[in-house]
């Protein structure tokens, strides 16, 4: 199982386009990538979940971990997600109140840092 992770700059934000399934096997790759970004000084991060087919508690754990890391640098972590089946995961776990969730990368990167 492959997890696609592409990073690009949109204005002052680092956007991570994720493709595939985020589960217990692939989540560590996402975690490493997000740690790498923060350690390079990218504190305003957008994680684009539009290409994600599957997300579970391990993926949520990684996103929460990354949120803590950027917050420690007064940064932000926003998500892009319009898929009902993925949004449902955030709703059930109460994380819609924790993450700003946008419907496009431009909206996410354009929002306040």
């Amino acid at each position, binding site marked *: 199982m492959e997890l696609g992770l592409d990073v690009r700059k949109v204005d002052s934000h680092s956007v991570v386009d994720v493709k595939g*399934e985020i*589960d217990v096997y692939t989540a560590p790759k996402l975690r490493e990538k997000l740690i790498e970004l923060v350690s390079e000084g990218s504190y305003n991060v957008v994680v684009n979940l539009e290409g994600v087919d*599957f997300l579970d*508690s391990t993926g*949520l*754990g990684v996103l929460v971990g990354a949120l803590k890391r950027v917050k420690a640098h007064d940064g932000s972590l926003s998500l892009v997600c319009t898929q009902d089946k993925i949004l449902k*995961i955030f709703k059930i776990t*109460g994380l819609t109140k924790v993450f700003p969730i946008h419907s496009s990368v431009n909206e996410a990167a354009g929002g306040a840092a």
Partner: protein
Amino acid sequence: MEIAIPPGSAYVGIVRLAVGSLARSAGFDEERVDEIRIAVSEACTNAVLTNDEAGSAEAIAISWREESDHIVVEVGDRGASPEQQPSAADSQGFAPRLVMSVALLRELVDDLSFDPRPGGGTLTRLTFSRAG
């Protein structure tokens, strides 16, 4: 049917594939198929991580059983029950992964139980009603 996987994270996706196909064949609609995949995947993930914490290399045993009005999926591991593990939020108010996992399980299944297994470990039982 029964599947036994080595307690490695790489195998959970294979269980999802099989379960998705079984759920579809059992007549669930695509939305419910997806929820069943998520729930079974959570149970297997917890089993893999908890076996690891318990230092057990034993296989995770998954069974899928179709009854007239419901499906029962059982996942057996050699680790602690989620109910025996810390559930306190951290200093910033974030719940541990396992708490989120159990929240997902409770929401997505029609009945959920964690029972001790003979020989140690936990049997997680997920029930999915065919009606709904």
